[in-house]
């Protein structure tokens, strides 16, 4: 729920921020979502909001591990910005293979890796647990996923 009179442009002033850098090992998935959730707890989110953030971050990080750095290990950068108006901005960036067709990748159940039992629901989960999801990708250069979530608080 956004505060009254606030436009949903998600461009509020940054109050605090942190950056996390880690290799794309699947063992880091749990740490990444827990670290982001712990940092966001400064804005006093409720239990559902914490669970939403954890799940969305997990999806984005998994995408970088499974798709962007497929068959290789690369670096994943996560930047979390806490903004005024109880807004959380989470940027998950990789220098992996990039997404050929972002629009298609965001379709529910679309996956390029059905053999590894990927459900194709990653972006759909991010979209339904956040207020806005921005994807910027260039083939061969990498992908940046930015999650925006406005917290209602307790």
């Amino acid at each position, binding site marked *: 729920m956004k505060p009254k009179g606030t436009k949903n442009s998600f461009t509020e002033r940054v109050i605090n921020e942190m950056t996390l850098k880690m290799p794309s090992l699947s063992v880091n998935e749990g740490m990444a979502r827990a670290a982001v959730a712990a940092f966001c707890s400064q804005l006093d989110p409720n239990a559902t909001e914490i669970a939403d953030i954890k799940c969305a971050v997990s999806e984005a990080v998994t995408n970088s591990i499974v798709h962007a750095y497929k068959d290789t290990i690369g670096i994943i950068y996560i930047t979390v910005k806490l903004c005024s108006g109880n807004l959380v901005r989470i940027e998950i960036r990789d220098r992996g293979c990039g997404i050929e067709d972002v629009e298609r990748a965001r379709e529910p159940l679309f996956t390029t890796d059905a053999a590894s*039992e990927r459900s194709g629901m990653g972006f759909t989960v991010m979209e339904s647990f956040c207020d806005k999801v921005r994807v910027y990708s260039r083939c061969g250069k990498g992908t940046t996923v930015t999650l925006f979530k406005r917290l209602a608080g307790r």
Partner: protein
Amino acid sequence: MTGKNCELDMKEAEGTLEVKLCGEIDHHSAVIVRTEIDARISQICPQKTVIDLSGIEFMDSSGLGLIMGRYALMQKLGGKLSVKNPNERIVRIFELAGLDKIVSIEREKGADRPTPHIANKKRKKQRREKK
């Protein structure tokens, strides 16, 4: 360095394999857990596999892949698969993929049920869709 964040316990009785998962299901743990489950399924060929999710504290879309994959395997063997006591967050993720319409969900008495608040929201949504 395995960093296992999901424990599993398997029991079999009268042609039914019950798999109880505890902890977190993400891409990391799903890969580990699925090999163990599949090994047991192909070993004993159960008529039914029940995946108990009551001990799951976190699940993302990798959990969907895990359930869908086991569902496909059980179908191939001519058996059934059901999911037991998922919490409401898990059900929400199931619903996003329409998995709740494919896999049957069992609930034990006293298990976590959708709160009236969420159930009402769902009903309202269904009414809106009918219109």
